């Protein structure tokens, strides 16, 4: 039986309140394309300051919203991606705004931005200029196609990133247009690569003191995750196309779907079907044990049909728990509700409650993507309100007087 959550596991014995990146200051100028990069840094302890244009970041308009009430302080998208961060408002296009930004850069370790190539240079805030201010600075730029090349100025959203990176082409039904994977995966993968690139640059800076410019191409981030598309073409001159259901051993259950992969332990798999009286000819024919034979499309289809007949009479949770007991790779196709109620995630205390005093509510968030024994991953607080830390940063830290701040506010700088 299940041990109480994490008892005896080293992760539970974290005593230190240290975070891994608690000594770092990050200036965050990201759109949705890069916002997960700075979320990772913030949840690992970095002091991340989100720089919003006066009036608030455009991503505050992205839904869904808290209780479906559209409001800049109620965007769940904003909440999710900006945990553990601070917020200041600053118009970096104005002369005063530029100077204030440069002042912040002096003490920053990392700047992450997602503007079109050349935009920061045009403001006099490109890498060369920022390096003058702070030679150890790491500037991470996330763009659809990178800072150079014939497509550098092309516009792209998540969908375009998936398309140009080659992932969209293999996703969807064979008789429908290619269909995108949900949840902005091109943005996510660009952000995650950017975070790794930034931290590689940080290691180099730890060793040498030298900063550098990290130039991330969303297209390349997508293109590096295509499993076998590159090799099928390179080695066999064949173009991978949408496999539809053929590529997914999906079985219908009473209450949804389960993915049952029979290829690994054929005898376990067939024994399980047999125990439910549903193995049909899969037991008698030895050829099924051959992996290559199993992978033939018509054979695969037949295996799916036999398995379907068995699984349709059970719920997906039961199918998978019983299947896994027999070493069959059986996985439920979970909805958000299934995920939130998943026994494994609950047993491991995965979800994190975050207080939102302004809403008078505590909201349940996804928890740690990784558990570190010495430097705890944590959500350091809910996403910031618009300009919530203006006084802390401009006043207390930079020493601007209340009058000066009022003046800058009047001019639309902050």
């Amino acid at each position: 039986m299940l041990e109480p959550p994490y008892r005896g596991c080293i992760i539970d014995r974290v005593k230190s309140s240290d975070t891994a990146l608690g000594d770092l200051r990050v200036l965050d100028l990201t759109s949705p394309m890069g916002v997960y990069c700075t979320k990772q840094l913030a949840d690992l302890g970095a002091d991340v300051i989100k720089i919003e244009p006066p009036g608030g970041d455009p991503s505050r308009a992205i839904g869904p919203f808290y209780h479906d009430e559209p409001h800049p302080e109620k965007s769940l998208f904003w909440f999710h991606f900006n945990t553990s961060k601070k917020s200041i408002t600053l118009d970096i296009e104005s002369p005063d705004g530029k100077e204030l930004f440069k002042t912040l850069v002096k003490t920053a370790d990392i700047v992450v931005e997602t503007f079109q190539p050349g935009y920061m240079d045009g403001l006099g805030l490109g890498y060369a200029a920022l390096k003058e201010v702070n030679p150890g600075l790491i500037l991470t730029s996330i763009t659809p196609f990178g800072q150079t090349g014939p497509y550098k100025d092309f516009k792209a959203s998540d969908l375009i990133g998936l398309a140009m990176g080659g992932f969209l082409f293999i996703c969807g039904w064979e008789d429908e247009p290619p269909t995108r994977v949900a949840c902005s995966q091109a943005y996510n993968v660009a952000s995650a690569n950017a975070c790794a690139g930034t931290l590689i640059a940080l290691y180099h800076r730890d060793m040498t003191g030298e900063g550098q410019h990290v130039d991330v191409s969303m297209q390349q981030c997508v293109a590096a995750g295509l499993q076998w598309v590159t090799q099928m073409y390179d080695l066999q001159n064949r173009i991978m196309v949408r496999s539809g259901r053929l590529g997914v051993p999906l079985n219908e259950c009473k209450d949804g779907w389960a993915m049952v992969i029979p290829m690994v332990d054929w005898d376990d798999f067939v024994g399980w079907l047999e125990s439910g009286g549903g193995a049909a000819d899969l037991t008698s024919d030895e050829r099924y044990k051959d992996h290559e034979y199993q992978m033939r499309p018509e054979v695969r289809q037949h295996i799916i049909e036999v398995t379907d007949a068995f699984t349709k009479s059970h719920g997906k949770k039961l199918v998978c728990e019983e299947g896994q007991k027999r070493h069959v790779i059986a996985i439920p196709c979970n909805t958000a509700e299934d995920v939130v109620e998943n026994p494994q995630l609950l047993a491991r205390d995965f979800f994190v409650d975050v207080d939102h005093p302004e809403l008078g509510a505590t909201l349940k968030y996804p928890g740690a993507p990784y558990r570190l024994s010495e430097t705890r991953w944590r959500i350091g607080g809910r996403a910031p309100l618009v300009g919530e830390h203006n006084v802390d940063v401009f006043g207390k830290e930079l020493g601007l007087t209340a009058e000066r701040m009022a003046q800058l506010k009047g001019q639309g700088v902050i």
Partner: protein
Amino acid sequence: MDNKFPLKGIRFTDFSWYAAAPFVTRLFAAYGAEVIRIESGTKLDGMRWQSPRKPDVTPTYNISGMYNNYNPGKLGITLNMNHPDAMGIVKELVSISDVVIDNFIPGAMEKWGLTYEELAKMKPDIIVATMPVTGKTGPYSQWRGFGTSIRTMAGLDYVTGNPDRPPIGTGMAAWPDFTCNPYHAAAAILSALHHRHKTGRGQFIELAQFESTVCWTETLVLDYTVNKRVQTAKRNRVPNAAPHGVYRCQGEDREVSYCAMPDSAPESRNKDERWCAIAVFSDEEWEAFCGVIGNLSWTQEERFASFLGRKEHEDELDRRVEEWTIERSPEDVMALMQAAGVAAGVVQDGEDLLTRDPQLKDHGFYVYHDHPEAGRIAHDGLTFALSSTPGEIRRAPLLGEHNDYVYKEVLGFAEEEVNRLITDGALE
């Protein structure tokens, strides 16, 4: 000073196999870490037998396209972990390593006695990273799964695709294996290296691939915990753009070979799978879009005049857009749209990526190396450019290729000792 490889000096004892964890060490190797991959002929990494392979090359475990693409720049050694001498060797290797990584089922490393506590005795500031499927603890800790299963377990498949048909997610593509799971692990390890630099202390990192992938589902969890809404699949549509979709374009009068699965029978036909993705968010972009397609009369209809109208009549809108795109190549559609400031992109296939895309060519994205058994082969390249320390994709090791170097030069074993280990079967 050698500035090319920023992670030079970091050594990995790498027990990873299949995809998710080898992808972690792939990144570290590209930036100069010395990644020593422990393999054994007695239990080969399944990737070594995966399709695709070159059809005209003798099939060995050294020519798998996927293995060679997932393991560039690593040092390959063989070590039979069940041999009595193996543990002594591991101990020596770990004592001069910075990071130990595995993605075995929970219990496998422990069976060998390689718990974090034991590894930390071999090297006090060691960083140990493990990447189990669902976690080391919990009722499902022994569950097995691949990247595809993790995707469906995390809720991604349910919200992907056509809501009126079974949830096929991203098909055979084990997306989390190449994205969230390795890059999350890399970030965690790099953050731990930073912490070690500050404090001299190592640590243990557990990345449950299930949890890591749930972190990549955007607002799926919050929308449920806050609004009790179970999000569903939406094809290519998003709430804040229209048109926003994938449109069929003119095919090419030229035969190519398509395949739905690596082992499926050849399917030669004209290159007719030609599509362009278009994303129109603002009214300004809509005006530009209409200009590109020559302000066709339907674009001026009242029902398409506002964003809400376009959203309401999106089926009709998509049909109209495709009437225009079907007459043109996707490259032309993209070029015309981009020139007017509308986001558009060819839905590129393997051929487009490797042979046509001028952007990837300009960046030298695909890296070609001569492999001793497979010949000249392509590798996916780097995803970001570091201005001072650019890194490099080198080729993957043959099975046991670096035994001599690692056992003799890294570990300092004498020739006779290595020969004895070989004779005794320790290096099988």
